[in-house]
C-alpha cells in the first residue's frame, strides 16, 4: 500500500523559542574562550550570529524538496587528504590549507540549503543525544580538574591529552585524517538524505 504523501503543514511546528543548535554554538564559543582558544571561539560565535541572521526567513516550502542532491566526492578525496598527512604531516601549511578547504567547502554546501519543515525524531534517538552530552560533560569535568590541578595533563587528562600522543606517527595521522574525512562525507550524505525525504 502506498504511503500517503505528507506536506510541510502536516508536521508539527517546534514550540521552542530558542534555537538549540545556535545556543550550543554560543556555549561552545564560550568554552573555547575559557580554555584559551579565542580564535576557535570567534569561529563558533561567528557561525551562531550568521545563523541567527540567515534563519530569520524560516523554513523552505515543500517545492524545495524536489531539488536534486549535490554530488559529493568519495574515496578519491579520502586518499588525497590522507596523502597530505603522509607527505607533510600535521601542523604544517599544507595541512592547514587542506583542513580549512574541507571545512569551508562543507559549510558552504550546507549553508546554501535552507531549513526544511521538522520531522519527528524517534524517541529512543535521545540515547544518541545522551551519549554525546555525556562525552561533552566528561570532557568538561576533566578540563576543570586539569585546570584546578595547575594544568597537569598527566593526572587529569582531557580527550585531547589522551589522543594527541597517538598521532605522533605520520602513518597514524594519515589513517586518522582519512577517517575524519570519511566521517565528514558521511555527515554531508546524511544531510543530503534528510533533504530528499518530504
Amino acid at each position, binding site marked *: 500500500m502506498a504511503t500517503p504523501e505528507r506536506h510541510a503543514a502536516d508536521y508539527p511546528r517546534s514550540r521552542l523559542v530558542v534555537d*538549540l*543548535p*545556535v545556543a*550550543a*554554538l554560543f556555549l*561552545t564559543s564560550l568554552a573555547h574562550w575559557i580554555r584559551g582558544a579565542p580564535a*576557535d571561539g570567534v*569561529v*563558533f560565535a561567528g*557561525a551562531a550570529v550568521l*545563523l541567527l541572521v*540567515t*534563519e530569520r526567513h524560516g523554513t523552505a516550502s515543500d517545492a524545495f524538496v524536489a531539488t536534486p542532491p549535490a554530488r559529493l566526492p568519495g574515496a578519491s578525496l579520502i586518499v588525497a587528504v590522507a596523502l597530505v*598527512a603522509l607527505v607533510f604531516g*600535521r*601542523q604544517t601549511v599544507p595541512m*592547514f590549507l587542506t*583542513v580549512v578547504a574541507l*571545512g569551508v567547502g*562543507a*559549510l558552504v554546501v*550546507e*549553508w546554501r*540549503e*535552507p*531549513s*526544511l*519543515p*521538522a*520531522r519527528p*525524531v*524517534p524517541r529512543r*534517538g535521545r*540515547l*544518541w543525544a545522551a*551519549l554525546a552530552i*555525556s562525552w561533552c560533560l*566528561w570532557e568538561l569535568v*576533566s578540563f576543570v*580538574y586539569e585546570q584546578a*590541578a595547575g594544568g597537569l595533563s*598527566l*593526572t*587529569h*587528562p582531557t580527550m*585531547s591529552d*589522551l*589522543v*594527541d600522543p597517538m*598521532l605522533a606517527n605520520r602513518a597514524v595521522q594519515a589513517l*586518522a*585524517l582519512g577517517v*575524519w574525512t570519511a*566521517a*565528514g562525507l558521511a*555527515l*554531508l550524505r*546524511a544531510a543530503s*538524505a*534528510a533533504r530528499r525525504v518530504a
Partner: protein
Amino acid sequence: MNSRLVTEIGFGAIVAAAVLLWLGSRLYPKKIPPLTTVLAGLMRKRSARIALVLAWWWVGWHFFVQN
C-alpha cells in the same frame, strides 16, 4: 585508583556505550534507531547541520592544525 585512571575509565565507558548503542541499532533497528536515522531527522534544520559540520571540522582543526 588514581585520578588519571578514573578519567580514562570515564572516556572508555562512553566509547563502550557508543559501540553497544551502534551494535544495538544494527541488531534491533526498530527498538534503537540507527545514528543515521536520528541525524537525518535533526539535519533538516540548517542550524543543526551547521553545528554538526562545525563540530566535525573543529576535531580536524584541533588535532591536525593547532599546535
